[in-house]
C-alpha cells in the first residue's frame, strides 16, 4: 500500500538565463514502513523532488505533476491545508544542521512549537515530551541542552535536535536530505542506527537522500538513481547493487573504493555532470557513458518497468563487464 505516490513530477526554475528543469518527469511510490534511498550527484534534482512535495521550493520554482500522500494531492495544496501535513504526517530533516535551526531561539522553543501546534499539548507537557524526544535520539544531557541556543551545540547535536523535531509528531513519512553528510563517520553510524530503530519501531517510511552508497547499503530497502533531473533506475537495493542495469548506477558502484582492496585503482566516471541549463541531447548521460549507442545521442530513453519490478531508462541492454572493466 503506497503512502506516497509521485506521478510525472516536474520542477522548473525561472532564472536570468532562462528556464531550468531541475526535475524531469519523475514517478515513484513509497510504501508504508519502507526505506527508500534517492541517490545521485549534486545537482541531480534529488533535493528539489522532495522540496517540491512539501511546497518548499524557492520563489522562482514551480512544480507540476502529482504528489499524493494517502490519496491527498500535495502539489498546489493551499498553505493552510499543507501545514496540517507538514511537520505532522510528513517531516523533513535538512542537510545542514548549522543553518537549519533558528539561531535566535532556544532549542526548547523550536521543539515545543511543533508539539503544541500539531499535538495540541500544553507548554509544560510539550517541554517534557521534547526532553523525552531528545533522549530518544540519544542526545546526552537533554535537560541542559534544551535550554541552550543552537550555536552552543555541536553539529552532531544539532542534527539530532533536528531529527527529534522531525519525529515529535510521529510522522508517517520522514524525509532526510543528506542527514549525515555534514557529520563525521562515527556520528554517522549512530544516526543510521537511530533511523533503523525508528522505522522498525514506528513503521515510519523513510526517504533518504544521499550520494553515499555505503549509507544506502546500510539501511535502504529500495533505491532510485537520479541524473540531471531524471530518474534513471529504480529497484531494490540488492538488485541494483548486484546487477545494476544502468551505466550510471554501474559507474557509481564501481567508483566507490573498497576497504578490502587497497591496491585497486580508482575508477571514477569520466567527465562532469552536465549543467542543467545546457543538457546534452538525447540521454543526458551519454557523453560520459562507456556503453553508449548511436541512438543515445538522439533519443532520451524512457523509464521502463520490467516484470521483476525494476525500472531503468537505458537503451543498452548488455553486460557491463564487456567494456571498460578492468
Amino acid at each position, binding site marked *: 500500500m503506497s503512502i506516497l505516490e509521485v506521478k510525472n513530477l516536474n520542477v522548473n526554475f525561472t532564472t536570468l538565463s532562462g528556464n531550468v528543469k531541475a526535475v524531469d518527469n519523475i514517478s515513484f511510490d513509497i510504501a508504508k514502513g519502507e526505506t527508500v534511498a534517492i541517490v545521485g550527484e549534486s545537482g541531480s534534482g534529488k533535493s528539489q523532488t522532495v522540496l517540491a512535495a512539501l511546497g518548499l521550493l524557492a520563489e522562482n520554482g514551480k512544480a507540476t505533476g502529482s504528489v499524493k500522500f494517502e490519496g491527498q494531492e500535495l502539489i498546489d495544496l493551499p498553505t493552510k491545508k499543507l501545514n496540517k501535513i507538514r511537520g505532522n504526517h510528513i517531516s523533513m530533516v535538512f542537510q545542514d544542521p548549522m*543553518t*537549519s535551526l533558528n*539561531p*535566535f531561539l532556544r532549542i526548547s522553543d523550536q521543539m515545543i512549537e511543533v508539539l503544541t501546534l500539531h499535538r495540541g499539548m500544553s507548554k509544560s507537557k510539550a517541554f517534557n515530551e521534547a526532553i523525552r524526544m531528545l533522549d530518544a535520539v540519544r542526545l546526552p544531557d537533554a535537560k541542559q541542552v534544551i535550554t541552550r541556543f543552537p*550555536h552552543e551545540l555541536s553539529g552532531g547535536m544539532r542534527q539530532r535536535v533536528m531529527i527529534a523535531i522531525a519525529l515529535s509528531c510521529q510522522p508517517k513519512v520522514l524525509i532526510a536530505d543528506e542527514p549525515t553528510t555534514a557529520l563525521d563517520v562515527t556520528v554517522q553510524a549512530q544516526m543510521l542506527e537511530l533511523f533503523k530503530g525508528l522505522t522498525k519501531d514506528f513503521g515510519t517510511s523513510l526517504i533518504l537522500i544521499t550520494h553515499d552508497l555505503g549509507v544506502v547499503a546500510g539501511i535502504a530497502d529500495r533505491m532510485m538513481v537520479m541524473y540531471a533531473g531524471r530518474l534513471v533506475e529504480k529497484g531494490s537495493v540488492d538488485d541494483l547493487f548486484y546487477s545494476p542495469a544502468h551505466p550510471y548506477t554501474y559507474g557509481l558502484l564501481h567508483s566507490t573504493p573498497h576497504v578490502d582492496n587497497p591496491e585497486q585503482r580508482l575508477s571514477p566516471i569520466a567527465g562532469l555532470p552536465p549543467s542543467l541549463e545546457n543538457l546534452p541531447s538525447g540521454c543526458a548521460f551519454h557523453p560520459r557513458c562507456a556503453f553508449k549507442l548511436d541512438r543515445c545521442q538522439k533519443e532520451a530513453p524512457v523509464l521502463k518497468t520490467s516484470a521483476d519490478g525494476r525500472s531503468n531508462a537505458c537503451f543498452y541492454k548488455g553486460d557491463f563487464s564487456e567494456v571498460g572493466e578492468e
Partner: protein
Amino acid sequence: MFKFILKRLGVAIPTLLILIIFSFALMKLAPGGPFTSEKPLPPQVLANIEAKYGLDQPNYKQLTNYIVGIVTKGDFGPSFRYKDRSVNDIIAQGFPITLKYGIWSFILAVLVGVTLGIIAAVKHNSWIDYTAVGFSISAQVLPNFVMAPILVIIFTLWLNLLPGGGWNGGQWQYLVMPVIALATSYMASIARITRSSMLEVLNSNFIRTAKAKGLPNRVIIFKHALKPALLPVITYLGPTFVAMITGSVVIDMYFSTGGIGQMFVNAALNRDYSVIMGITILMGVLTVLFNLMVDVLYAWIDPKIRY
C-alpha cells in the same frame, strides 16, 4: 551585560573628551575672540571682560575648568553673547522643543519604515512591494529641506490647513509638518533596509525548516523571522539618530520652531562660542548614549553576543 555596558562606556568617554578638546581647540584657533567683533573696546575694558570670563588664563587651565564644570555641575558656562544668560539657559529653552518633535519623528520613521519593509518583503513582487520600493527610492531624494517646503505648499498654501511655521507651545498643528518633513527620508531608508533584510531572512535555511514544520505564516514571520531581520535595522538606528539631530537644524530654520538647531546656527553666526561648544557637546553626549542603547539592544536580541 553589565560588563558590556561598562566596556562601551570605556570607549564613549574618551570619545567625548576628544570632542570637547577638539571643539575647544577650534574655538581658540578661530580668528578673533568672542568680543572683538563689536566696536573696538579700550584695552583695559577688554582685559577686564576677559578676566571675568576666565579668558586670561592659560588655555589648558581654561579647558580643565570647563570640563570640570560640565562633569561636576553640568554647567556649560555663560553665554558670550547674551550677558545675562548662561549656556544652560539657552539650551533649556531650545532642547525640549527639539526633543519633542525629534522623538515623534523618530518613532514615525521607525514604525512606518519597519512595517512597510516587512509588508513589502512578505508580499514580495506584489504591487504592495513595488509601491513600497518606489516610495523608498523617491523619498531618498526628498531630504528634510525638500520635504519641508513641499509640505508647506500643500498644507499651508493650497489647503490652508496648517500654520506655516512657529511652535506655539508644541500644539499638534505646529508639530505635524516638522515631524513629517524630518521623518520622511529616514522612513524610506529604514523601509528599504528592513525589506532587504527580511527578504534575506525569509530565504534562509532556518525559515525553510520552520515552514517544513507546518507553522502558520504569522508565526514564521513574527516568531522566527522578525528578530534576525531587525538586527541590521537596529544597527542603522544609530546613524539615523545622528542624522535626525543634524536634520533638526533645517527644521528649526525653516519652520522657526526655536529648537536647539536654531540656537546653534544663531550662536555660530554670532560667534557665541560657549553656546556652540555647549550644544556640540550635548549632541555628542546624546549620540554616544544613543549608540550605547542601540548596542545593548542589539546584544539583547542576538544570543551570539553575550557579555
